[in-house]
């Protein structure tokens, strides 16, 4: 940065300087010119003045930048002194009080550069004054016998000293103030920088051309973490183009949910110089929101379930029972009809069971459960069921996993996932199950060869009443999720249309209190 640009009255000072010089010329012009020849235009004084005016105009408009240089200024002071002296001498007014014109030059030097200019100017002025006095024809140096003439020289110095000192003091004050201002600005800048750098939301600022002019560490981290900057910048540009500030949230390529708040970057005059985008990753919050929704849903279901259980089961029992009575009393070959009534009544009853199950509160039952054992149990009971008998179910146990929980409820988890996979495929259903361990978790992978789950439905399959299966109630997987949550477990689904689905159940392994024998299996698929 240019050192001089920091001076407070930079341009004003030069203009002031120029005005001073006009004043000087006018005064000299008027006093000396008038004094020697009245208003006649052709006296030497007037000619000198005209030359000086031209000289000044040239300086002002041609060598303006030189006015910022001390050495050049000094040259000008020198010329001024010569000009004043010549003007005085030619006007023959050296014995007059016109010597005060030297004061103007001294003042100018003071205003511009303080003592370091005013004192030399005073010295030169004194010398020239004494010299031209000596040249004076009639009185010459004898003038100085009169103390009032001699006194003029110390006055020049006094003037130089006072005005120079005043200027230096002012300068020092200004410098101190500037330093204070700089420190305040530095502090403020530091403070704002700290605020911007500490904000956990990403901040990105673009100018009116759409170029990024500022980003904070949080924004850089988001980008480093693989978030695509394009939709963010696009959003900010739209805000800029349409002149609207908005808040929006969207799903980014990697699946994370982001919110973007845009606002205009305004200067102190209210002009828009760019746009600010504040970006936050709200994936976790959204997940929590979904979980909350889910549990609200369940609470509602809980109330409903109790009502349904009683109010539907009674009439259902009557329908079922009455059909049995009809069967008992008649021998007209209506067995098939009655069987259908019973079958469907049982189906309704099954649904009620599911609803009650999902609404059931965690009872905190804790027993030691061997997942492989539970799985074998589930598979063998599925094989007993006519519906699942022809399916190909294979189990591979890499490591036995022991968890703490409700065996019956966990049984239900695996039963629901496997039977779901088989039912959705129908004929030729194949289910591959793998049980293994990783760090502190037990994993159960259940893969089917069904039609797979469309990507947009993957998240919904665990919601109550959502079903992709014909005739499904949409409760089976909701129950799975609920039971796993009760067991501090998780379920993940990996699926693509046409490629089957893989359900991964993750359960925390029971922390053994003593040394427990871990059973290892050979890790091959077995039927």
């Amino acid at each position, binding site marked *: 940065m240019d050192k001089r640009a920091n001076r407070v009255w930079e341009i004003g000072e030069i203009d002031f300087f120029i005005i001073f010089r006009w004043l000087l010329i006018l005064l000299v012009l008027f006093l000396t010119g008038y004094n020697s020849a009245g208003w006649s235009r052709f006296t030497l004084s007037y000619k000198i003045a005209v030359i000086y005016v031209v000289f000044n105009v040239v300086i002002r408009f041609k060598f303006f930048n030189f006015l910022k240089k001390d050495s050049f200024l000094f040259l000008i002071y020198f010329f001024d002194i010569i000009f004043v002296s010549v003007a005085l001498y030619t006007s023959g007014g050296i014995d007059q009080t016109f010597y005060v014109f030297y004061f103007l030059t001294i003042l100018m030097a003071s205003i511009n550069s303080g003592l370091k200019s005013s004192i030399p100017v005073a010295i030169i002025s004194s010398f020239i004054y004494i010299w031209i006095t000596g040249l004076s024809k009639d009185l010459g140096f004898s003038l100085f016998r009169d103390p009032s003439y001699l006194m003029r020289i110390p006055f020049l110095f006094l003037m130089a000293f006072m005005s120079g000192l005043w200027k230096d003091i002012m300068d020092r004050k200004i410098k101190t103030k500037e330093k204070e201002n700089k420190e305040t600005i530095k502090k403020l800048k530091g403070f704002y920088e700290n605020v911007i750098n500490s904000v956990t939301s990403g901040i990105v600022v673009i100018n009116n051309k759409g170029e990024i002019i500022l980003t904070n560490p949080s924004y850089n981290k988001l980008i480093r973490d693989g978030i695509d900057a394009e939709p963010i910048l696009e959003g900010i540009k739209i805000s800029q183009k349409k002149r609207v500030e908005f808040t929006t949230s969207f799903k980014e390529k990697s699946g994370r949910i982001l919110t973007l708040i845009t606002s205009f970057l305004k200067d102190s005059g209210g002009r828009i110089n760019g746009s600010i985008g504040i970006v936050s990753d709200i994936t976790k919050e959204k997940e929590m929101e979904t979980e909350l929704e889910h549990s609200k849903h369940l609470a509602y279901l809980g109330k409903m379930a109790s009502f349904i*259980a*009683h109010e539907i*089961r*009674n*009439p*259902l*029992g*009557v*329908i*079922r*029972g*009455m059909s*049995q*009575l009809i069967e*008992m*009393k008649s021998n007209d070959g209506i067995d098939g009809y009655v069987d259908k009534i*019973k079958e469907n*009544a049982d189906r309704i*009853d099954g649904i009620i*069971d599911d609803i*009650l199950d999902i609404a*059931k509160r965690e009872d905190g039952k804790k027993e030691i459960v061997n997942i492989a054992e539970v799985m074998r149990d589930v598979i063998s009971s599925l094989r007993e069921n006519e519906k699942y008998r022809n399916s190909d179910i294979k189990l591979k146990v890499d490591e036995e996993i022991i968890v703490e929980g409700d065996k019956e409820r966990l049984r239900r988890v695996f039963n629901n996932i496997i039977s779901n996979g088989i039912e959705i495929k129908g004929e030729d259903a194949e289910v591959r199950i793998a049980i293994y361990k990783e760090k502190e978790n037990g994993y159960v992978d259940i893969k089917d060869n069904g039609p797979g789950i469309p990507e947009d439905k993957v998240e919904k399959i665990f919601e109550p009443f959502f079903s992709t299966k014909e005739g499904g109630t949409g409760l089976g997987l909701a129950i799975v999720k609920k039971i796993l949550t009760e067991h501090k477990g998780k379920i993940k689904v990996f699926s693509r249309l046409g490629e089957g689905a893989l359900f991964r159940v993750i359960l925390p392994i029971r922390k053994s209190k003593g040394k427990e024998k871990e059973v290892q299996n050979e890790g091959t698929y077995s039927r």
Partner: protein
Amino acid sequence: MKALIVDDEPSIRYLFSEFLKLKGIEADEAIDGFEGIKKFHENGYDLLILDIKMGEKHGIEVLEDIRRQGYKTPVIVCTAYKHLKEDVMIVSDEKVAFMSKPVDLQELWKVIKDLTKNGN
């Protein structure tokens, strides 16, 4: 053999009494626990079929009352709430059976035969 059906649902009472009559058992009905206990004392029965959730006095209370009074009469407790089985188990003995609704009549008959086979 005489049986008392205690249930606040008229159609359930009707179903059970029709069934029991078909099986040659004389059936009587009561609409809640109070009427059930009153009738039980008045007429004496060989079998009680109790619903748990009834308006005034519920089935488990009826069961507790008659057992306290020393009656060993066989009792079948029916309910639409399967989880209440555990509550029934607390006050149950070998002459008490738990059935969840909807009740299968064939099952009911098996249970009745089972409970009454040694006679009272």
